[in-house]
């Protein structure tokens, strides 16, 4: 039962309630970075990494500090500062320990701070009263779901280069319409979790 709940959370975060396509979180990089498939993978992995990390750290901060000392009103300020610092620390750490990884992910890291998917993840996690383990699984699932949406979108956009699109619809407009189709397709997965 316990494993099943974890699996449900994972699949929900990843597919049926995909962060980008149902909660509209992380739309900025979704529209901006999804032009090339390899860039999309890099960005996706960087986000997954930071999401998992921030889910665990903010969980501890919320339950061991804010909740215990009755400071719920500091939640938003605390979370955004934690995320921003985490991104910085991760960036410095990767730069020191693994230059190849830094070359691959480095340029995406600063972008992540303003990615609303991360803050959204931590807020949803608190709202749904997840346990620590659930929060971590949720973070991984949401990150992978984000990667999935980004990569699919990049694949479509690479093909779109050759399509004949009306002048006014070019750019963000057509991207959003395609995202709508993708969201429709992802809604079709809704029946997976019916237990």
């Amino acid at each position, binding site marked *: 039962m316990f494993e099943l709940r974890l699996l449900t959370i994972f699949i929900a975060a990843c597919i049926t309630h995909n962060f980008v*396509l*149902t*909660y*509209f*979180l*992380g*739309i*900025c*990089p979704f*529209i*901006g*970075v999804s032009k090339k498939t390899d860039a999309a993978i890099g960005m996706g992995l960087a986000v997954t990494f930071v999401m998992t990390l921030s889910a665990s750290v903010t969980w501890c901060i919320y339950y061991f500090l804010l909740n215990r000392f009755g400071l719920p*009103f*500091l*939640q*938003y*300020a605390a979370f*955004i*500062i934690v995320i*921003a610092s985490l991104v910085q620390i991760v960036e410095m750490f990767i730069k020191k320990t693994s230059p190849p990884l830094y070359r691959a992910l480095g340029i995406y890291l*600063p*972008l992540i*701070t*303003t*990615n*609303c998917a991360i*803050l*959204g993840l931590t*807020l*949803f996690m608190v*709202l749904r009263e997840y346990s620590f383990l659930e929060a971590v699984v949720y973070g991984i699932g949401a990150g992978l779901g984000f990667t999935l949406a980004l990569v699919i979108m990049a694949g479509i956009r690479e093909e779109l280069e050759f399509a004949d699109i*009306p*002048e*006014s*619809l*070019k*750019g*963000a*407009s*057509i*991207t*959003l*319409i*395609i*995202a*709508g*189709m993708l*969201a*429709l397709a992802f*809604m079709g997965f809704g029946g997976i979790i019916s237990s």
Partner: protein
Amino acid sequence: MIRDFTRGIWRENPIFVQVLGMCPTLAVTTKGIFGLSMGLATLFVLICSSVAVSLIRKIVPNQVRMAVFTVIIATFVTMADYFLKAKFPPISKALGPYVPLIVVNCIILGRQEAFASKNNVARSFLDALGMGVGFSLSLIILGSVREFFAYGTIFDVTILGKWYEHWVIMGLPPGAFITLGILIGLFNWVNKKITGRRQKLKSGCEKCSNCAS
């Protein structure tokens, strides 16, 4: 001075031209009234932060600029959130976690970085007001269009009668994407007709990365 205000409403409209702040835009616009509330909450945060940032712009060291801006924005967002919870519980419930997500709305941080940290209080105020009004108007339009197709009502006033079969998908995420995509396309088209020259759309993330750096 007047242009500081009008710029945000049409020429640099945060949603239709700059394609910023997508996440609240798409998420809460299932009904006109929610679009309006989200717009007003953002307007409040934007004006307060811009004025505050503009006031202290000379004493904040460059290195910690972003950190200070973020704290200021988060403070006003928390205030807006508690205010909504206390005074308008149904709206607060409907907007849910998208109110705190105003913190990471690129429009707000972007305006601090691009305008309020460089200009005096009066101009920053007008700039924030313009951007906020432009954002709210776009949200109201998007919300009303979706509400009309999804439920046959606008601001909960019934336009189409009982015979109207609810087009549920318009109230769901795919409807949000598609409606906004078409609206942006329309906006471009109208703009082109008016100015007679092509207004190139800047992609969302170029701007986003600007405000992150």
